[in-house]
């Protein structure tokens, strides 16, 4: 029944590794996002996809590469992980043309050692 689900919920890895976080939404929404929340709880947008197409790409290192195989999925792959990548990553979705609320996943806490 989960509307926006992310996996894994927790990820602990070493610097330099490559890791992926997956996101799926079963709400039929057209637009999906990745947000990063740092230790000070500041939520910052990273990427937005609408119907599998990239529409927002904020200033994010190119070690981060989103992939949307279909409009229900938006995955985030991170290469050569750095200490500063440690954060909680939230996936979210919204219907197109709606000015309203984002539906968030439960977050994936990434810890880079």
């Amino acid at each position, binding site marked *: 029944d989960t509307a926006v689900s992310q996996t894994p919920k927790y990820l602990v890895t070493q610097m330099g590794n490559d890791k992926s976080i997956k996101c799926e939404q079963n709400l039929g929404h057209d637009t999906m996002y990745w947000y990063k929340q740092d230790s000070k709880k500041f939520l910052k947008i990273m990427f937005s996809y609408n119907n599998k197409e990239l529409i927002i790409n904020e200033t994010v290192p190119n070690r981060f590469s989103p992939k949307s195989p279909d409009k229900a999925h938006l995955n985030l792959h991170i290469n050569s992980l750095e200490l500063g990548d440690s954060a909680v990553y*939230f996936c979210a979705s919204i219907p197109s043309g709606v*000015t309203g*609320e984002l539906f968030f996943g439960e977050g994936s806490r990434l810890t880079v050692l």
Partner: protein
Amino acid sequence: EDKVVQSPLSLVVHEGDTVTLNCSYEVTNFRSLLWYKQEKKAPTFLFMLTSSGIEKKSGRLSSILDKKELSSILNITATQTGDSAIYLCAANAGNMLTFGGGTRLMVKP
């Protein structure tokens, strides 16, 4: 660059107190202002405001938008320990939400 600023950064009150949280925004193509509550996991939606001066209310929580001042407030009356959380304000501009840094509220018994 779109910007949303919240104040205060943190607040400690006692149960029963009333609190007012502030949010100001500078965004292009503004469409709506949203408030979220975040406890341990994902932010949960509280309110969406699109029109100035119309108060939205849900139990002890209420919120209002002032488009002239580019700001919004969230009021919580008769606070309870369960209100302890981070309250996030976000401005919607063209299907993108820009979040403020949040106000961390702690309600002591």
